[in-house]
């Protein structure tokens, strides 16, 4: 087994196309991604010392073990993880930690999800009983669902409020700046054959699409969908025993960070997606020695256009308070100085929740290897991935092309 504190590398990576696949089950998707990642790394399931399996909506069904029964039952430890939209990043991190702890030399992390057409996610109402008599219940002594009566807790509105809070505090941000985020990500997705949607929309079409929760129109919200992604992660010591070709394509994982939301005053009523992201980013920059200005590409959690904009600031991609200017100036476009979501992002590539945090590591890895085809960000050597799930959990990984 590897040395404690050894470097950790991505050896193999893969993702399925994201979309809606009613004829397949979630294990089909997970298996496809896992087998492709193993093949990509030039290894087999028999080389794996640990499996991290991320799936949110079926997290009580032993998805890792179900996956093993399709791709290889070798008796290794499985960690089934569920951590909101940071589920996939958490699966990677369980493998990362096993290697860092010296318990494993190589492991497989798989993120998978089958959501179909799920509609709005968030708080749900309760079924009505026969005779309806108000009875206070729960931690707020409620007699009715608060949804729509005491504001909204559904995702399009929650993230709209996160964006509008940024607009309140910093200015220079309005409907158009938020819409420009979606304009960019839809445009980027046209180059990504694995994206759920690959259609470009004009700013006008985006701003005039059906309003979901102002300022988020339908084209500024990510779709629900199905898909999976997988990565093979390996210790530096083990990597040095592998072939020249395997070593040449390996990508160093220079930081792996997971945070939760610390107590903040306003977060008691509106989730604070900022503080934990800033904390994760700062820790990742410190661990890796990478400066935000060094980044060649970023895959961040654009579940809604309003979310991407605030994360420009949270991830230190722009000057503090300047996120509106950052998008207005075109800096996060693929031909800008810090391309953000060259894959199309969650908005257009899709967001099968458990897969997302693994798929963004696949995406950055693919660019750093120079294998991203039409959507390649030329000469990319350093990238960052970010996911955040409400509750909250945030995962950030820094990836670098380096010599093993």
């Amino acid at each position: 087994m590897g040395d404690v504190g050894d470097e950790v590398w991505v050896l193999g990576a893969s993702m399925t196309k994201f979309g809606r696949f009613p004829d397949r089950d979630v294990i089909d998707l997970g298996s496809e991604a896992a087998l492709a990642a193993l093949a990509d790394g030039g290894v087999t399931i028999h080389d794996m010392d640990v499996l991290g399996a991320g799936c949110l909506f079926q997290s009580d069904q032993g998805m890792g073990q179900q996956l093993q029964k399709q791709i290889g039952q070798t008796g290794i430890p499985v960690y089934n993880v569920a951590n909101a939209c940071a589920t996939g990043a958490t699966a990677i991190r369980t493998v990362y930690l096993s290697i860092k702890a010296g318990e494993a030399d190589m492991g497989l992390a798989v993120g998978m999800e089958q959501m179909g057409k799920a509609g709005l996610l968030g708080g749900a109402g309760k079924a009505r009983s026969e005779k309806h008599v108000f009875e206070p219940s729960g931690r707020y002594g409620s007699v009715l669902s608060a949804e729509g009566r005491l504001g909204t807790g559904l995702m399009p509105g929650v993230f709209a409020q996160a964006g509008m809070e940024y607009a309140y505090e910093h200015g220079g941000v309005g409907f158009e700046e938020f819409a420009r985020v979606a304009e960019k990500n839809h445009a980027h997705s046209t180059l990504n054959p694995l994206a759920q949607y690959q259609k470009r929309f004009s700013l006008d079409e985006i701003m005039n699409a059906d309003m979901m929760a102002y300022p988020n129109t339908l084209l500024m919200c990510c779709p629900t969908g199905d898909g999976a992604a997988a990565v093979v992660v390996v210790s530096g010591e083990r990597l040095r025993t592998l072939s020249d070709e395997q070593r040449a394509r390996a990508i160093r994982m220079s930081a792996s960070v997971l945070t939760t939301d610390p107590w903040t005053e306003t977060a008691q009523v509106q989730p604070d997606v900022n503080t934990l992201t800033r904390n994760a980013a700062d820790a990742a920059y410190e661990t890796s020695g990478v400066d935000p200005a060094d980044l060649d590409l970023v895959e961040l959690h654009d579940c809604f256009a309003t979310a991407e904009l605030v994360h420009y600031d949270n991830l230190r991609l722009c000057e503090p308070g300047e996120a509106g200017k950052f998008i207005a100036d075109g800096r996060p476009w693929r031909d800008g100085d810090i391309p953000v979501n060259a894959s199309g992002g969650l908005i257009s590539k899709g967001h099968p929740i458990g897969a997302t945090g693994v798929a963004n590591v696949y995406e950055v890895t693919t660019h750093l290897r120079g294998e991203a085809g039409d959507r390649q960000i030329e000469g990319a050597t350093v990238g960052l991935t970010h996911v955040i799930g409400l509750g909250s959990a945030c995962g950030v990984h820094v990836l670098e092309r380096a010599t093993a």
Partner: protein
Amino acid sequence: MVDYLELDDGSPHLVAWEAVDSGALYFDRRNADAKSGGTEFRRRRLGIDGTVRSFTIVHRAAPGVATPYVSAIVDLDGGGHVKGNLVDVEPDPDHVSLGMRVRLTTFVAGTDDEGTEAIAFGFAPVEDT
């Protein structure tokens, strides 16, 4: 419709649990203070005037919820932040703005089969003087 709204014979207001150690405010039943870890709390009456720090205008909602409506985060004068609907205002971006001044009001949110009304709170715009 929630236990942190006190109707108080015509002067409705919100009450929070205030952590004695840290001053953190909560509307829900608490096991401990998420800021300090302390377990001592006291009831604190909150102000009824405030400022909109964020809002969204919801057009696509859960079944049974009338749309469009405005959900807002309000900073209450004297401390505390709360989420609620904006009422007595046109639900469009021309009539709702960040930083607008609002005051707590109440409305009937529903009636059960025995005729008991559930009273909710919302916030209505006020002219700042």
